[in-house]
């Protein structure tokens, strides 16, 4: 009699405990919404704008040379340790980048690399392709990132 009461109590307590824990979503392994597919090939690289502060970029048909010159100075100071303009180094070369990516994606990669390599399908794939080397956040301003983008158009 005593034993079965104890067992019942133990069960009840266990039940109550389990009921508690199932309220916290991060401990639930099943029945959650399925994560969005993150396979890179599913994203169209030229329409993917990436994740970050830049949602649209206006670009004139012709290169703004003054802006590009400024961008070159920033690039050489802040980016060259890992990105050579025309050849693969620690990271990929920016030459021809706008044939492969949207301008917004490029700027978001510069401005928000931590989130991009975690959540953007293309950036995630690139991180693995480049030996897990993180894209360093060099804390460029949005203007500076825009200037660097203009410089990329001249490569």
């Amino acid at each position, binding site marked *: 009699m*005593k034993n079965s009461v104890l067992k019942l*109590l133990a069960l*009840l307590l266990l039940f*109550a405990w389990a009921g508690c824990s199932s309220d916290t979503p991060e401990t639930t392994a099943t029945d959650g919404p399925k994560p969005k597919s993150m396979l890179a090939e599913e994203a169209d690289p030229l329409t993917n704008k990436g994740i970050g502060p830049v949602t649209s970029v206006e670009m004139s048909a012709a290169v703004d040379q003054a802006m590009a010159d400024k961008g070159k100075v920033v690039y*050489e100071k802040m980016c060259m340790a890992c990105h050579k303009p025309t050849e693969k180094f620690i990271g990929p070369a920016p030459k021809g980048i706008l044939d492969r990516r949207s301008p917004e994606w490029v700027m978001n990669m510069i401005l928000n690399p931590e989130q991009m390599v975690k959540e953007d399908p293309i950036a995630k794939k690139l991180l693995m392709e480049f*030996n897990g*080397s993180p894209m360093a956040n060099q804390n460029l301003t949005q203007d500076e990132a825009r200037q660097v983008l203009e410089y990329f158009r001249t490569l």
Partner: protein
Amino acid sequence: MKNQSNQLSKLLLGSLAALVLLLSSCGKANQGSASGALSGNAASKVYVAPGQYDEFYAFMSGGFSGQIAAYGLPSGRLLKVIPVFSVDPEKGYGFNEETKPLLNTSHGFIPWDDAHHPALSQTNGETDGRWIFINGNNTPRLARIDLTTFETAEILEIPNSGGNHSSPYLTQNTEYVVAGTRFSVPIPQKDVAISSYAENFKGALSFVKVEPNTGRMNIEFQVLMPALNFDLASSGKGPSHGWTFFTSYNSEMKNSLLEVNASQNDKDFVAAVNWKKAEEYLKAGKAKDFPANYMHNVYSDETHMATSTAMKSVKVLIPSECPGLVYLLPTPKSPHGVDVDPTGEYIVCSGKLSADITAHSFPKMLKAIEDKAFDGEVGGVPILKFESVLGGTVKEPGLGPLHTEFDGKGNAYTSFFISSEIVKWKVGTWEVIDRQPTYYSIGHLMVPGGNSMKPEGKYVVALNKITKDRYLPTGPELTQSAQLYSIDGDKMELLLDFPTIGEPHYAQGISASKIKPKSKQFFKLSENKHPYVTPTEKDAKVVREGNVVRVYMTTIRSHFMPDNIEGIRVGDKVYFHVTNLEQDFDVPHGFAVMGANNAELLIMPGQTETLLWEPKSVGVIPMYCTDFCSALHQEMQGYIRVSPAGSATALRWWLGDEKPVQ
């Protein structure tokens, strides 16, 4: 049987209660507030959930470690050890070329000191979170730490001092930090018989002016006092602003067996210095220029390096020539701590050997001066009559009173070393309200802002001298023990024990919100004015000037430029000037070379630091990054080829593609 069923029903009830509790707590786990059954639980009052911040910073002196340790309160979590007076190989402090000048003194480079009393800068009597000052006790010095970087920004040597103990105890707008000497010494130093103490020795009280924008320190003047031993200090506030009070012992003026010989007199003195009067005497040209020899060392966040300048004289005021500059307040007995209350009216003094706590009254002191209520003099300094300045006495509150802090609600908290307790009492009525034991033998104590005009009276921290059995034993040497008490209720409540570095003497506390928003995340490369900066990888190079080789090197995740160097010779002095090109928070790189006789470099983003390496034998020597920086941190490495002295091996360097011999 009856007994059994009783037990059973008790068990049943207990379990049901537990069940109800558990169910009712469902869904509240993330709300953070401890309510219901948890209230009154000490653990919940010091629990800072993972990822959450502490409410206060606490800065504990490192005592004989020479450093300051920054903690979070109420958790007691160690946030950073800030190297100040002692070298710290972990950070390269005192080992890299940039910080060596900070530890320069008139005696040469000194890798250690004994740091006692941190003092947060104040504006209008309130802590402002700009700087923290601390005294070096052994080789007399004062340091200023910048609280945007948590790094030592300046160290000033104090001449004519024999141990800087009653220091820094700054004024309410950080006009001055003070530096009273513990030992009286011959001034200027000379070869005399020690027994000529009373005749030949003097005690200097230094007033160090702080430049309000930069924090730069400068010895404005010294007051040359008779041969007393100055112990602690407290600057006036509000009505008493303009005065600083120094406790002293050894009014007997003895030079041996002080334990006995300096404990004879019933009363010793508090020296009250009118520094506003001193400023008038300075202006009137009353100060004498005394030759002196001391170093002033300043670190720059622009050049990322310190410079050391030799200083050659100080201005000295002689009390007998400057009436009204300083008075002596008789104080029972061998006073140690002196603490001006937040209203600025009372000067609370703790006579180590006195049964009582004595509070002098500042208004009564002014009246006594006006009435010339003198009781003799010492070396031209008038002694005020004890009864004429006495403001109140806390009668027999405990044994061995040392220090007092305030909570801003009219209460005072005094530490008692011998009876090992904190006693709470009321300022003005002098009645004891509460007492709590400390474990063991408390020295200083600290309420955040508790020495300012605006204490943040939520906690008091006991800084204990004896640890004994409080923690798991670690052989004969034990860590020091701090204890946190809540003081926001009527009764003090012990919440937490936590270990501290070195031997903490005094400490300071401040709301995190006064420091956190101003905390620097990295140094801007564009503002780096280091003479050997390498601003981009393109600028990396190796330059030989005779047997001095300068390596202009960069770091970024995860490589050095260059990472291969040839043409170094045995007997060279190789300076690695390493610039961290990262421009993001929390991406330092380390740098270490096999066989280097100093330490690593730990280079913050945007900073340049220099390691000197003198290779002694031929070979190919590895170097690597010591601070885990990325997934490929382990690959952040390189080689330096060392050829024999006089070898013709070409000087060249590269990263990736080998650079041809030029």
